[in-house]
């Protein structure tokens, strides 16, 4: 049981890492033009908004997909 719990915890960690990779990818493309010598305020808030809006988008799409499945 301990082994199973450990494996599930590690799997969950790996999933979160995967999501962080994907989010950084999307928001980097969305917000970063040419990399400068500092992360300016505008880019930083673009990135944090990007994460929030991306998660809103995923949620909205999940809801819509469930509606669609019910209609079928």
């Amino acid at each position, binding site marked *: 049981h301990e082994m199973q719990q450990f494996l599930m915890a590690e799997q969950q960690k790996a999933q979160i890492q995967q999501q962080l990779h994907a989010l950084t990818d999307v928001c980097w493309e969305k917000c970063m033009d040419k990399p400068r010598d500092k992360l300016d305020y505008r880019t930083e808030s673009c990135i944090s908004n990007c994460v929030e809006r991306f998660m809103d*988008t995923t949620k909205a799409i999940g809801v819509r997909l469930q509606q669609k499945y019910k209609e079928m």
Partner: protein
Amino acid sequence: QLRQQIAVANATELLQKLSDKCFKKCVTSPGTSLGNSEQKCIAMCVDRYLDSWNVVSKSYVQRLQKERQ
């Protein structure tokens, strides 16, 4: 159970693809909340993507059948 895993994997991949594509198409500069027009765009984007999926499936199956003859 395997069948279920494949179905779940599929739904997960669809959700990821849709999030990616519809976010890129509909949220050009992310603000402090999803605006009304962004929400509408996302809903339409999902619906059109599923439409496209259906058109693709139909064309793909027809083609496979034509080739088997």
